[in-house]
């Protein structure tokens, strides 16, 4: 049985409403189930990042409601929203956004400290996460000493560390070379498959789109198509079962 993680009803976001209104997101309905691997695609300015920010509780819609696991996040106060994000949503940003004064491990551990996770549990999860992303030997290295791909993998470990309901990734491969992007996507696909982790990407990157199981296309703030697809990689490796 599919469990609904995100349920957005008729959400709209207008920038500059009093001067030159820009309908970044326009009456969008979106329903995402647990374990989906979804790509939000569309041209620049189509509203991908705005939609991601609304779903992630980083921004508030001007209209509509967003339910995350049954909680209407549009009704939460600023403080409640911060706490909600901490316990439910993982973020991966385009420019990695690791804290430069913390090591890779400390960056990932930071979220768990905010959550009040005990030291022993933190250590155990850190070991597992860094093993999963293949950076066990880089745990004590600061971000400046890591490549872009490695930094983005640490960002994924950070997003996963909080055991979120889903992970929002805004153009996660935009600043990566092909090999790093491929490696990163492998990691994400593995986590999606093995841990049933829900991923939602905003992307232009064809490599990401090819891995997605669902592709939602946005044009001028509206969903123009919403398609379930079989990832190209699975066709190539003969993993298609249906």
């Amino acid at each position, binding site marked *: 049985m599919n469990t609904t993680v995100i349920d957005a009803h008729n959400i709209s976001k207008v920038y500059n409403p009093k001067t030159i209104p820009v309908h970044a997101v326009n009456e969008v309905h979106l329903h995402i189930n647990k374990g989906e691997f979804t790509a939000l695609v569309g041209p620049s300015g189509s509203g991908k990042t705005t939609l991601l920010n609304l779903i992630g509780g*980083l921004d508030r819609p001007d209209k509509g409601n967003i339910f995350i696991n049954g909680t209407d996040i549009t009704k939460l106060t*600023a*403080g409640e929203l*911060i706490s909600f994000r901490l316990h439910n949503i993982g973020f991966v940003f385009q420019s990695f956004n690791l*804290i430069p*004064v913390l090591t890779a491990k400390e960056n990932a*551990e*930071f979220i768990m*400290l*905010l959550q009040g996770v005990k030291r022993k549990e933190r250590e155990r999860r850190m070991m597992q996460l860094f093993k999963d992303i293949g950076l066990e030997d880089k745990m004590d290295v600061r971000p400046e000493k890591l490549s872009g791909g490695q930094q983005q993998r640490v960002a994924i470990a950070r997003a996963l560390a909080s055991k979120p309901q889903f992970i929002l990734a805004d153009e996660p491969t935009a600043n990566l070379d092909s090999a790093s992007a491929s490696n990163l996507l492998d990691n994400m696909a593995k986590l999606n498959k093995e841990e049933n982790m829900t991923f939602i990407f905003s992307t232009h990157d064809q490599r990401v789109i090819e891995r997605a199981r669902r592709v939602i296309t946005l044009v001028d703030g509206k969903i123009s198509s919403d398609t379930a697809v079989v990832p190209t990689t699975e066709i190539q490796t003969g993993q298609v079962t249906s």
Partner: protein
Amino acid sequence: MIFIMAWRNIWRNKVRSIVIMLSVAIGLFAGIGMLALYKGMLRSRVRTVIDAETGHIQIHNPEFKKDFHPAYVLPNSNELLKSIRSFSGVKLAAPRSIVQGMLVTTTGSSGVTINGVVPELEYKLSKLKEKLIEGEGFHTDKKNEVIIGKKLADKMKLHLNSKLVLTFTDTADNIVSGAFRVSSIYQSNNAPLDEVNVYVPLETLNELLLTGNSFHEVAILLNNDDDLQMVQNQLKTKYSFLLIETWKDISPETELMVKTIDDYSYIILIIILFALAFGIINTMLMSVLERTKEIGMMEALGTSRKRIFLLILLETIFLTVAGTPLGLLVAYFLINYYQTAGIDLSGMGKEMMASFGYSTTIYPSFPSEKLGGVLLLIVSTAIVSCILPAMKALRLQPVEALRR
């Protein structure tokens, strides 16, 4: 981890942080140095009052202080003196006969306070001999000798061996005069007192006053400054009919100065720290503005505003407090050096310093008792300085901050 982040964050721009830390160190050094200087000056002034002017305690006939009439001697003066010397904590008790009179020379006259003293005791009690700049003090074989202050000598154009006449009223209200010869000239740290106080042998003055063996004042030096209140209370209990005053009662302006200078020095320290606060605020504001995206990201990930405020607060405290040990150490070593060597302020004008009752050589003293207050002020400065940068950080909306 917020502590670790705060500490590491202040080293992200080393030069900027070191400049602020050095500013705090220099400001603190200046503040502590000033407190030490004040403490040294006050200590010196209090010592001068006790050791060279009033002694720790003075005892008088209560009527004497009303109009200084010479008839009001201490009853049973000699028995009283003996008894006082037997009190525990009393180092020295010296008798004085005191009368207001006129000093007359061929060129003019001047109002003076004539102090009849026992030379050997007075030399120890008010360090009169140490203050002599001309002459050897009283000669045992000469009765009519007078020691006058330099300021009075200059004013009346008197020199060693100059003749002068002291005129005053005796106990029977008769005007009496005595001819004296200047045996010595003294100079203390208190020019106004030098101008009015003259010293003659007790016996000579008593003969003229017709007070016999009695006297008007017993000045007491104690072994320990801290025994002041205890000895005063004991004396008051035993001699309730006498006026028993400590140096604080006799020289209230000195006591007031001790109290007010403490407040002034804190005010000056606050002004120094206030000026420093602007530098700290500027540094922290720059630091926050440079990290807009990072702070927005932290909030996006779920860092509460309380924690972000704590981060900025800790960074400001670390930045401010990091310079403190350096400032304290430099102040400590320099003050300790000058506590022994002294700082010669004669360049500021010996006359001016003396007119306020201060020595020209100041021995600063490290104000260890004020360190708690100083550190509290520094931490308060940090807290106040962090408010504006923290507000700036807290106003950031994660979605806008991440867009930058």
